[in-house]
């Protein structure tokens, strides 16, 4: 029964090309800044918690320090012996805090935490660290003198492999560099039907291509990413808004819109 069903499909299936397309995305590296609502809620929540709490040892010592310093000033005005009191005071919390601030500033200067990653060029993996970015390419698709518009990387399905294997091959063939990515799931999450222009369809006898989309995540330790220049003439990492601005074809973008989860 299976065999006959298969034969039936083979005979009657419309001729079309099958492509697997990969949405290779880099997850956000740092948490996005808090929204205004979140900020206000956090500020007020912290204040409330502080009101309800008890003083801790450090705060007690700060209070004690203030008292001692006031007494010291009083004694100094009266011109009395201070060395004993100084010994009692030791290191005050104010002094400690200054020291901590100095160290924090040192670390800040050393590691430069506040780099604005938005200014980096679109080829850098380090751009837009608080956003999800996906790879879009201009692909040659194995045809001479042809370059696709901005698309998600795709690869034509070969007989004998599963769609997931095609997607894996797609990642392998378009890229180079020191990175690793993993495709999630065997099933495509979306499909798009691309109708070939009439002259092409007439020439090849194939009216359209079905593009099946897969999601892939870039591993977090991926440092560098480069493309295989034989297949890809240009590439960039874009966030959701840039994706909608750069990539042509509303239906194509709509088909792939679930690639973005933010």
């Amino acid at each position, binding site marked *: 029964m299976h065999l006959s*069903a*298969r034969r039936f*499909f083979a005979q009657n*299936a419309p001729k*079309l090309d*099958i492509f697997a397309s990969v949405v290779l995305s880099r*997850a*956000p*590296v*740092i*948490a*996005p800044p808090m*929204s205004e*609502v*979140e900020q*206000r*809620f956090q500020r*007020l929540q912290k204040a*409330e918690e*502080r*009101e309800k*709490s*008890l*003083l*801790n*040892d450090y705060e*007690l010592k700060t209070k004690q320090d203030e008292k001692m310093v006031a007494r010291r000033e009083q004694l100094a005005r009266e011109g009395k012996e201070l060395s004993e009191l100084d010994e009692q005071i030791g290191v005050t919390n104010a002094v400690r805090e200054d020291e901590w601030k100095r160290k924090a500033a040192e670390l800040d200067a050393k*590691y430069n*935490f506040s*780099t604005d*990653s938005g200014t980096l060029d679109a080829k850098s993996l*380090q751009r837009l*660290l*608080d956003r999800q970015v996906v790879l879009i390419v201009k692909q040659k698709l194995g045809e001479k003198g042809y370059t696709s518009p901005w698309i998600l990387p795709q690869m034509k*399905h070969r007989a004998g492999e*599963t*769609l*997931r294997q095609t997607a894996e091959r797609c990642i392998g063939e378009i890229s180079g560099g020191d990175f690793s990515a*993993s495709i*999630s*799931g*065997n*099933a*495509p*999450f*979306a*499909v798009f*039907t691309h109708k070939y222009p009439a002259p092409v369809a007439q020439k090849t006898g194939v009216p359209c291509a*079905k593009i*099946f*989309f897969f999601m892939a*995540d870039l591993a*977090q330790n991926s440092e560098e990413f480069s493309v295989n220049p034989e297949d890809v003439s240009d590439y960039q990492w874009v966030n959701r808004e840039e994706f909608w601005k750069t990539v042509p074809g509303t239906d194509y973008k709509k*088909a792939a819109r*679930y690639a973005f*989860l933010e």
Partner: protein
Amino acid sequence: MSLLSNFAKLSLFQTRSIHQTLPVASSVFMKRQKKIDPEVAKQREARRRKRLEKEIRHMQKHSKKPKPVDELTLDVKSAKNIEERRRPPIELTIEQIDERAIALKDYTKSRGALQREDDAWIRGVLTSQRKALEELKKVSPELYEAAVQPATADLPLIMHGPSLTPPIKNYEAPDGDYIDTTRVWTS
């Protein structure tokens, strides 16, 4: 007794059983019971009972003791001067109370909106995937069969959430010893 033994002589089997049981009770291998003063014996008994009772009490106390929850236990050292630790009471103005209530409400609303967004995404992507699989089934049943196989190799999927600062490139951790201070609760 003498009467019994006299009777016993009549039967061969009975003689044996009776004569043999008696020497067993005072066998050479048995320890000879010392005669003890009943007063001392009573004392000993009492002591033993006391010790047993103590052991039972100890076992009851320690047998099924759950491991303490540090957050719930009273820090004795800090509790000593708890009165010093109280903050001066703060009277909130009506505006402040309102601000807090509004902030909480706004926050709750924002979380709800976020949840609905996530929900919509999940529903949308499921529909989208179903549609894609249906199309695939039409195009090629073999590929469809391969696509609906569970991808067990992908699981479990472990991702480490975004941090507040990006990882530092070429960071050299300072030297030091790793000391595990985790308490162990098995006994």
